[in-house]
C-alpha cells in the first residue's frame, strides 16, 4: 500500500503566489484552490512557502490583512525525493511535523527553498492510499 513511489502519486500542479502580495490575496488563492499551502515566488524564482499555519500565526501576531506574504512566509520547505516510497514520505512528515512535502530530487527533510519542485505530496494523498490502496495524485 505504501510501497508506491512518490513519483507515482505526486501532484505536479504547484500553486504559487508572489512574495509582495498581501496575505489577504494569498489567502484568497488558498481558499479558492482548496489548499493549505502555496509556494512563494520572486519572479520566476521560488523563495518560500506560505501555509495556513503561517496565516493563523499572522492573525495571532496582530498583523493586518495587508501584511506582505514575505513577512509571514517560511524560507525553508520540507522535501522528499521522487524515488522515495510513500512510507518514507509519511516518516518525513511525522518527523518534521508537516502535512505536505515538496518533491525535489536528492532532498530529504528541511531544505532551503532554491529550486522549483517537481510536485507536492500531502497527507491527504497518503490517506487516500491507506484507504483504497491507490493514490489520488496526477
Amino acid at each position, binding site marked *: 500500500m505504501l510501497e508506491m513511489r512518490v513519483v507515482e502519486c505526486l501532484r505536479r500542479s504547484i500553486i504559487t503566489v508572489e512574495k509582495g502580495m498581501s496575505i489577504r490575496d494569498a489567502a484568497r488563492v*488558498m481558499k479558492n484552490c482548496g489548499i493549505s499551502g502555496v509556494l512563494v515566488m520572486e519572479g520566476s524564482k521560488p523563495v518560500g512557502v506560505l501555509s*495556513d499555519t503561517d*496565516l493563523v*500565526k499572522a492573525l495571532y501576531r496582530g498583523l493586518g490583512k495587508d501584511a506582505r506574504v514575505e513577512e509571514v512566509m517560511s524560507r525553508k520547505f520540507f522535501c522528499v525525493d521522487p524515488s522515495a516510497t510513500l512510507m518514507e514520505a509519511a516518516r518525513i512528515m511525522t518527523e518534521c511535523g508537516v502535512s505536505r512535502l515538496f518533491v525535489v530530487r536528492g532532498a530529504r527533510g528541511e531544505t532551503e527553498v532554491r529550486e522549483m519542485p517537481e510536485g507536492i505530496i500531502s497527507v491527504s494523498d497518503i490517506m*487516500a492510499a*491507506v*484507504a*483504497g490502496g491507490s493514490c*489520488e495524485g496526477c
Partner: protein
Amino acid sequence: MAKVKEYMTRGVYTVDRRATLKEVARAIAKYRVSGLAVVDEEGEIVGVVSDTDVLRAITEGKEPERTRVEEVMTPFALIIEEEASMEEAARMMVHEKVHRLFVVREEKPEHPSLSKQYLLRPAGVLTSSDIVAYIAE
C-alpha cells in the same frame, strides 16, 4: 470583531471508537477533512483523530486494518465558544499547536482541554482553513 460562529463549519464528522485506521482513512478521504471526532457506543465524543495521528501510527508499524482508532486518538479535544473572536481562535491554535477546535455554545470552561460535558453537543468545528477564509475577506 469577527466571531467564530461566522466561519465555523456546522456539524461534526464522527467515527466509532472501534473503527480501524483504514476506516478512519476512508472517512477522511471521503469527507475531505483532516480530522474526525471519535464517538462511543452511545454517540458521545470521547476524542479526536487527525490524519497526522493515522500517519504517525502507520510509521510506527501499526497495521491499518487491525489497529483501532481508540488506540491512537487524542482522548480529549480543545473547545472554543462560538461567540469568541477569530483572533482568540488563532491564539488558541498557536498556543496549543492544533489546527482544529470544537465549537460549543456553552460558557467556556476555565481550562481549555476539556471535560466530557462540553463535548457532548458541539455545534461544529473551526479549522485553520476557516482562519484562511477569514483573512481572505
